[in-house]
C-alpha cells in the first residue's frame, strides 16, 4: 500500500519498511522472574511462549506507540500501523458505538461528548467528490457525523482566526527582535501549521531550522485546546470524557495530534483524540454503501454564547492553506510601515509552488515574503537558509504541492481527471466560501478576554503556542546497504 504521508515524511524514514527491527530503539522490557537461569522461549504460530516454567505461557507482544516512534530518530515504521489502530475509521466507529476509548497510555475512558471539528479543505474535497455546494456538503457532513453519534459538529473558523492573530503578533515581535539582534534566529519566520514540514524539520534539520519556525499552534491544535480546556467547562464535562475528532486534509495531522506536546497531564488527555481525513470519510461512506448526497442534512452547532456569530465553513484571504502569508504581510505592512491595503502581487519563481511578494517603500524592498509548497521547494528554502542566502522575512511553508487543498489525504481525482484540474476546482470552491471576519469576531474577542486572560498573557501563550524538538540522529552500521 502506498504511504499516505506527505512526501517530506516519506523521506524521513517515516514508514521505512526495510529496516524496522534493526533500527528500532524501543527497549523491550521483559519482566524477569527470580531464580531462573534462563528462559526458554518457543515460537508458535500465534505468538511467543515462555516454556521455562514447564507450561506454556504466552509472552506479551511489544507494543510501540506513535509517541515512541516520534521520539526516535530511526524508523517510524510502526507509525502507520499505530495510527491505523488509534486514529482509524474503525476506531472512530467503535467509539461512537461503545462511547468509550483507549488513549495512547492504554487507559480506557468513557465518552460523554463527541465533538467533531471540520476544517475547510476536506469539506471542499468531499463537496467536489459528491458534486455538492460547499454549504450543502457541510450540512451533509454534519448530518452524517450526527447519524453516527456525534454530539457536536463545529467549524474551526475561530481556531483559524486565533492562529492567524497569534502569527501576526509573533511576526511583529520577531521583526523587532531581529532589528535588535540580527544574528539570533528571529527571521525569516517560517509557518508552523503543516505537521509534515514541522516533523521533517525536527528530524532532519533540528536546531538549525527550528528557531525560525513560528511557535503558534496550528488551527487543529488551537481547536483542540479550545474544546478540551474551554468548551468542556461550559458544557460541564470532564475533558478526558470528550472525544475530539478533527476532519483534515492530510494524514500528517494524525502525527501532530499524537504529539506529547499536545497531551495535558493535568487533564490526562490529548487535545485532539482522532483525526479523520477526506479520503477516509469517502471510504466510510463507501463501506456503508452511501453517497454523501443521500445523507440527511443537519446544521453545524454553535456552542458559544455569542449571538452575533453563526457557524459556517469559511475562507480566509490568501492561499487555500489558511492564508498565512497574506495575513502576516498585510498586518506587518500596516503596523511596521503604515501601508494599509498593501497590494499582494505574487511573482512565481522557478515553479508556481514557490512565489514571493514584496513591499517597497521609497524604492526599497522592506518586506519580502514567500509561499513555498511541496518538498522540492522546502529543500530550496532550507538550502538558501543554510547558505545565508534567504532574502525572506516570512515564508508560508506547506509540505504538499499546491498546499493544503491538495493535502495528501484529500479524495483522489476521478479517472480521467488530473490532480491539477482537481486542485483548480477546489481553489475555485474555496474562493466562493464566505469570508471570515477580519481579525475574528466577537467570539475571538471574548475568548481572549474570558479564557486567555488577554492577548500576550501567559495563558494565551500556553494555549496558543507550542515548542519543537530536534531529534538526534543515530546511524547504525547494520543498516548500510550498498
Amino acid at each position: 500500500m502506498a504511504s499516505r504521508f506527505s512526501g517530506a515524511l516519506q523521506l524521513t524514514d517515516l514508514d521505512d519498511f526495510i529496516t524496522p527491527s534493526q533500527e528500532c530503539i524501543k527497549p523491550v522490557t521483559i519482566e524477569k522472574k527470580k531464580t531462573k537461569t534462563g528462559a526458554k522461549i518457543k515460537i508458535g504460530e500465534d505468538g511467543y511462549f515462555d516454556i521455562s516454567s514447564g507450561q506454556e505461557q504466552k509472552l506479551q507482544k511489544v507494543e510501540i506507540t506513535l509517541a515512541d516512534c516520534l521520539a526516535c530518530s530511526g524508523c517510524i515504521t510502526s507509525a502507520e500501523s499505530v495510527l491505523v489502530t488509534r486514529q482509524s475509521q474503525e476506531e472512530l466507529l467503535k467509539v461512537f458505538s461503545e462511547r468509550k476509548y483507549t488513549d495512547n497510555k492504554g487507559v480506557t475512558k468513557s465518552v460523554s461528548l463527541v465533538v467533531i471539528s471540520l476544517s475547510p479543505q476536506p469539506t471542499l474535497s468531499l463537496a467536489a467528490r459528491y458534486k455538492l455546494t460547499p454549504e450543502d456538503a457541510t450540512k451533509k457532513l454534519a448530518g452524517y457525523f450526527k447519524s453516527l453519534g456525534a454530539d457536536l459538529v463545529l467549524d474551526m473558523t475561530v481556531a483559524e482566526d486565533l492562529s492567524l492573530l497569534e502569527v501576526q503578533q509573533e511576526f511583529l515581535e520577531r521583526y523587532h527582535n531581529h532589528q535588535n539582534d540580527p544574528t539570533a534566529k528571529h527571521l525569516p519566520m517560517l509557518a508552523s501549521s503543516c505537521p509534515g514540514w514541522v516533523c521533517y524539520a525536527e528530524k532532519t534539520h533540528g536546531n538549525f531550522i527550528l528557531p525560525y519556525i513560528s511557535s503558534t499552534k496550528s488551527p487543529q491544535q488551537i481547536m483542540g485546546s479550545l474544546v478540551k480546556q474551554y468548551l468542556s467547562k461550559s458544557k460541564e464535562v470532564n475533558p478526558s470524557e470528550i472525544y475530539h475528532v478533527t476532519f483534515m486534509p492530510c494524514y500528517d495531522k494524525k502525527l501532530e495530534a499524537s504529539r506529547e506536546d499536545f497531551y495535558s497531564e493535568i487533564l490526562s488527555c490529548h487535545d485532539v483524540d482522532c483525526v479523520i481525513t477526506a479520503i477516509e470519510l469517502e471510504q466510510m461512506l463507501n463501506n456503508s454503501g452511501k453517497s454523501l448526497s443521500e445523507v440527511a442534512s443537519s446544521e453545524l452547532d454553535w456552542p458559544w454564547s455569542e449571538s452575533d456569530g453563526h457557524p459556517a465553513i469559511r475562507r480566509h484571504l490568501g492561499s487555500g492553506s489558511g492564508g498565512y502569508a497574506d495575513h502576516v504581510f498585510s498586518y506587518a505592512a500596516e503596523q511596521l510601515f503604515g501601508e494599509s491595503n498593501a497590494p499582494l502581487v505574487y511573482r512565481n519563481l522557478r515553479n508556481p509552488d514557490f512565489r514571493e511578494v514584496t513591499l517597497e517603500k521609497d524604492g526599497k524592498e522592506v518586506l519580502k515574503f514567500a509561499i513555498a509548497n511541496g518538498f522540492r521547494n522546502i529543500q530550496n528554502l532550507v538550502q538558501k537558509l543554510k547558505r545565508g542566502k534567504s532574502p525572506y522575512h516570512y515564508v508560508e511553508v506547506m509540505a504538499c504541492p499546491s498546499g493544503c487543498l491538495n493535502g495528501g489525504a484529500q479524495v483522489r481525482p476521478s479517472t480521467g481527471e488530473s490532480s491539477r484540474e482537481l486542485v483548480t476546482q477546489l481553489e475555485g470552491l474555496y474562493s466562493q466560501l464566505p469570508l471570515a471576519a477580519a481579525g475574528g469576531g466577537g467570539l475571538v474577542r471574548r475568548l481572549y478576554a474570558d479564557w486567555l486572560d488577554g492577548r500576550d498573557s501567559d495563558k494565551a501563550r500556553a494555549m496558543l503556542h507550542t515548542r519543537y524538538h530536534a531529534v538526534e540522529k543515530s546511524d547504525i552500521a547494520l543498516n548500510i546497504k550498498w
Partner: protein
Amino acid sequence: MANLELLQTLHGHKGIVWNVAWHPLGTIFASCGEDKTIKLWSKEGQEWTIKTVLVDGHQRTIREVAWSPCGNFLASASFDATTAIWDKKSGQFECNATLEGHENEVKSVAWSPSGQLLATCGRDKSVWVWEVAGEDEYECESVLNAHNQDVKKVAWHPSLDILASASYDNTVKMYKEDPVDNDWTCIATLCSHESTVWSLAFDKTGERLVTCSDDRTVKIWKEYKPDNQEGVIITDKESVWKCVCTLSGYHTRCVYDVAWCHQTGLIATACGDDIIRIFKESEDSDPNAPTFELICTKLNSHSQDVNCVAWNPIGNQELLSSSDDGEIRIWKFSD
C-alpha cells in the same frame, strides 16, 4: 576470436573501488571508492597514471562519479548524504558546490545530456532532479518518491530529458518533466526482474535500455511510442517499455553493472563472479525479439566482485573496470 586484452592494472585506491567514469574526451577518467578519495587518471606515454587526487570532499565512501557533458564539472555521490560538484575554474579541481537533501547514502549521480540537469538517488528511496541555476548554484527541481525501496542507479536518455532509475524494489522507473507545474512525474515502470536492479544503460538511440540485476539476468527493453507500428497498446499517451530479451544462464552471481557502447553497440557486464562479459547483438536480430550473443568471457578479470564497467566514449574499444579488490583495470576489446 573476440578477446579482452588487459592493458594495465591500476593501483592507487585503498579498499573497494566503486566506480570509474570516463571524461567525454576519453583521455581522462575519474575513479572513486571506499577511501573517500577521487582520483583523476590520464596517460603518460603508454601508462595511465594518477594526475590529481581529490580529498576532503566527503566524509564517507564515494559511490559514484560523473563528468558533465562539457567535461568541465565532475559530480561525486557519497554515503555522507551529499553530492559534491568539482570544477577547476581556479586552475585546479575544487569542490565548489554541495547538493544536500538526501536523508542518507547517495548511491548514484548523472548529468542530463544538456548538462543543465543532474539526477541523484539513494537509500532514502528517492530520486532527485537538480537544475543548474547559475554559477555554483543548484536548485532542487523535483523529489520523486516513486520507488518503495533503495534506489541504486540513475541514468539519463542520451538526447532527451528523460530519466531512468533502478531500485532494490526490482523495478526500473522513468520520469520526465510536466510543463504545467515544472514538476517531474513517473511515466513508466519496468517490471520483469525478480530481484534488485543494480544498473542500467541506454543505447545510443535512447529507444532501448539494458538493465542488470541481482537475479543474475540482463534484460533488454524496447520503447514502444504512442504511434508504434507493432500495435502495442499505449495508455496515458506515454511510451510503453517492454522487455524484449532476457540474457539468463550466463551470469552465476549478481550482475552489478552494465555498459552499452554507443559507438560499437557492444554490451559489457560487471559481475559478482569476478567475470567481465561482452555481448553482441546478432546480425539477423529481430527488433521486437532481439538476440544477443556472448562473445567474450574474461574469467578472473578481477580477484573479487567487479563493480563497474565503462566503455571509452570515443569508441576505441577500451573498457575500464573496477573492483572490490581495490584495482582498476583497463582493457582493450578486439573482435
